[in-house]
Structure formats: structure tokens, C-alpha cells
């Protein structure tokens, strides 16, 4: 069963050449993909199309068999810039998605009909995810009082409380120092496997693409027609970083990108 089905997609920004022309792609459920390519190749654009933040000019995007019209709450989005509300505490930021759902009520669009707000349950969910991401004790702090890594953890917790079946991440760890980046990469792999979430990560870092993506989609500068997909069994290993094929895989990605990286 496919999670995402992109069918004959056309997209480009006005006044610029098309980024995608007759582009089709299917991503099976539960897989972890990375999108890599030079800047301006459209990898982030593809992600925001899959998030429903932008609409295709032509063609269709289906998620879980349903055409995508607007951002769906079950798709979690994580950006390089954490996107936390500066005026809200960690606890309030993590609860934001649930509070938005509560604000609309069970209207069948923002929350399933028959859904009911349960304050106790919400509190438990929020504090569970705060704990899982190692932010316990920071609930009452504001984003400005956190380190970069902690902010990104809070952003991930905020996404995870919504029980996503799909995680779309745009350079989520690029702004972090290497040790924290590695730690969060490991965390996302564990989370994704345990909850069997389909994960798509945009990155410009070849090592990261190999660590996180069992399939690596290499986008090209200019117009993309047919997706160029590398199978990467290394990412399914327990520790991809130290695996014997890791360097060979990185080399393969570099070649696919045109060798000039």
C-alpha cells in the first residue's frame, strides 16, 4: 500500500522554468526516504507539495489514497527553523496541534467527528512526548531559553503528539552541531521504526541522506522528469554510520548528483 502517490505532477514558480514536469513517484507506507540535490533543485518544494502547503499546477498528489487538498494534521512537518511560537512555553508549544484541534472541535475536517477533547488525556500525551524527547523540567520555559537542539526536540515533540503517520522534514538537523545532529538522527530513526511512520527528509548532506534514507531520491538542477531513486540497504542496518558499505554508498550518491559536490 502506498503512502504517497504523485501522479504526473507539473510545478514551477511563476516566471521560472518548471521544477517538475510529468513527474510521478510512489512512496510505500512505512519507508524512510531522503531527498537530496543541489540548492534550487526543488527538493524542498516537493516536500511542501506533499505537505499540502503548495498546490500542483497540474497532476495530483494522493496521500493514503485520498487527494491532498490542504495540510493534513496526520502529516507532521519539521523545519530547520523549528517554527516554535516564541510567546508560548515548551508545554504550550507541544500542545499547539491538540489545542488547534480543540479550537475547531469535531467538525469532521480538523478533527474526526465524534472526537472529544479530554484535558487529562491531552496533558498525559503532551508530557509523555516531552519526556521522550528529553525535555522534562523544561515545560515552563520559552523557546528563547532553550538551546538549538532542545528547540528542535520541542518541535519534534509538537509533531509527534499529533500521532503522525507521515513525517516530512526539511533540513531538520542542518543548524545543529554534529554531536547533537547525530543524536537527533538516531532518535528519529528509532521513533520512526517503533511507530512505523513513513519519513521523508530533505537534506543537502550526503552522509545524512545515507543514514536516514532506505531510498534516496536525487533531484537535479533544472526540470525533473523521472525520479532518480537509489536503493540504500545501509540505512536499514543497526548503525549505518559505521557499516562497511557506508562510504561506498556515499560515493554512489555523490556520483548520482553529478560528482561535483
Amino acid at each position, binding site marked *: 500500500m502506498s503512502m504517497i502517490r504523485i501522479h504526473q505532477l507539473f510545478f514551477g514558480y511563476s516566471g521560472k522554468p518548471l521544477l517538475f514536469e510529468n513527474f510521478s513517484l510512489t512512496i510505500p507506507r512505512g519507508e524512510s526516504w531522503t531527498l537530496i540535490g543541489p540548492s534550487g533543485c526543488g527538493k524542498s518544494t516537493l516536500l*511542501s507539495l506533499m*505537505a499540502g*502547503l503548495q498546490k500542483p499546477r497540474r497532476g495530483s498528489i494522493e496521500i493514503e489514497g485520498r487527494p491532498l487538498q*490542504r*495540510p*493534513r*494534521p496526520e*502529516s*507532521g*512537518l*519539521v*523545519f*530547520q*527553523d*523549528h*517554527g*516554535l*511560537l*516564541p*510567546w*508560548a512555553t515548551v508545554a504550550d508549544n507541544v500542545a*499547539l*496541534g491538540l*489545542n*488547534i*484541534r480543540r*479550537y*475547531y472541535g469535531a467538525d469532521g475536517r*480538523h*478533527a474526526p467527528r465524534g472526537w472529544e477533547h479530554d484535558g487529562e488525556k491531552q496533558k498525559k500525551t503532551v508530557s509523555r512526548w516531552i519526556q521522550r524527547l528529553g525535555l522534562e523540567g523544561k515545560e515552563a520555559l*520559552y*523557546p*528563547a*531559553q*532553550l*538551546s*538549538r537542539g532542545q*528547540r528542535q526536540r520541542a*518541535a519534534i515533540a*509538537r*509533531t509527534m503528539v*499529533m500521532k503522525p503517520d507521515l513525517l*516530512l522534514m526539511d533540513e531538520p538537523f542542518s543548524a545543529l552541531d554534529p554531536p547533537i545532529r547525530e543524536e537527533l538522527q538516531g532518535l528519529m530513526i528509532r521513533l520512526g521504526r517503533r511507530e512505523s511512520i513513513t519519513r521523508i527528509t530533505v537534506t543537502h548532506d550526503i552522509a545524512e541522506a545515507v543514514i536516514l534514507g532506505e531510498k534516496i531520491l536525487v533531484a537535479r538542477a533544472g526540470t525533473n522528469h523521472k525520479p532518480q531513486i537509489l536503493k540504500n540497504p545501509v540505512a536499514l542496518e543497526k548503525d549505518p554510520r559505521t557499516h562497511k558499505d557506508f562510504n561506498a554508498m556515499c560515493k554512489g550518491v555523490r556520483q548520482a548528483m553529478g560528482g561535483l559536490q
Partner: protein
Amino acid sequence: MRSCTKGILEPAAGLAALLLFWQAGAMALDRPILPGPVTVLPLFFQHLWGDLGLHFMASAGRVILAILIAVCTAAPLGLVLGQSPHINRFFSPVITILYPVPKIVFLPVIYVLMGITDFSKIFLISLILFFQILVVVRDEAAGLTPELIASVRSLGAGRRALFRFVYLPATLPAILTALRVSVGTAVAVLFIAEQALTQWGLGYYIVVETYQVLRYPEMYTGILAMGLLGSLLYGLIRIIERKFAPHLFIKDTG
């Protein structure tokens, strides 16, 4: 306990010093134009429950109404400008030119166009506040990154929820700060506007009812009332700020 009394003690001491200084100055000068607080304060508390109170209410009503009008017009417009660079580029030169002009210069224009009514006075004050709020709300809304908006939208927020969870909390502190710093100017302009053709208001009371008929001690009760009006508004806005924008009062450690 100690910090509690400390918080009250120091301002009280400051106030006492001010009164002492005033009394000493009055005694040293020894002329009717500067009566001391010993004369003025009893009069003030006595008159506050009479006519002075009514003048105070008239002025306060005008300022508060002007604040409401300014907030209701400038805040939405500032949001639109801040979120749409195209529209902002169009209006930017207009705002840049009008923003620093002291709005009091429009007083004659407003009087001619709108008549010397209560509304024209209120309009003038709201005009001052309008530009202050417009500029800060615009800049605040422009500072909301596309990533922030996108990530909140990805959590299921539509237009309504974006307003409730992003735009309102993002701009409210800025609106309150703009109000707090411009409320002094607003009261000053009110003083000038109230000198012409009205029977009520502190400006009228201070200039027409007391100063021009040489009732100096009463004039000072009017000045005190004006100070009270300004500081009450300032304090009120400060309280609302603390309640709705607590993150402004923390120290940035990140």
C-alpha cells in the same frame, strides 16, 4: 516578606520626596502661581468627587474611545501590510512620510472637515495612536517567518486558528507597547484639543475654568488629575501586558 515591603517602600519614599520638593519650592518661591501640596492635595481629593471627577471622566472617555478606534483600525491593517510585501511596498512611502508628522498639525483640518465636536477630538487622538500601532503591528507581522506559519498550518490550523494562535498573540504585545509609549502623547494632545469649544475635560478645566480666572490651586488639582489619568492608563496597559505577554518579561538565555 522583606522583598514585599521593599517593593512598596521605595516608590512611597520617591513620592514623598517629590511632595517634599514641591512644598519646599512653593515655600521658597512664595507666589500664588505655585501653591504647595499642602494646599493642593486636600482640594484635589475633595474636588475629585465633584466637578473635577466629571472632567476627568470626560477626558478618560475620549482617550479610551480613541484607543479602541485606533486599535480596531490599525491592527488589522498592520497585519495585512506585514504579511503581504506587495501591499506594504505600495503603502510604505505614505506611512514613512506621515508617521513622523506631529498629528496635532492636522487639528485645524480636522476641525474644518469634521466640525468642532467631541468626535473630532477623539479622531485626532486616535490618529496619533493609529500610526504608532500600524507600524509596530506591521513590523511584528513581517517578523513571523514563513516556516512558523507553515508549521502551524501543518498542525491543522486554517485562517481562523492562525489568527487565534499566531497573529493575535504575536501582535498583542506590540500593540500594548505602542499604546504604553504613546499614551503620554495622546494625553498631551488631548489637553490641547480640549481647550477649544467643550465644557468638559481636563484641558478645559485647567485652562478655561482655573488658569484664566487665576484659581491656581484648582489648576494644580487639574494637573494632578491629568497625571493620574496618564499613569492609570500606563499602569493598566502594563498589567494587561504582564497577563498576555509574559514571555516579554523573561531573560533571553538562548
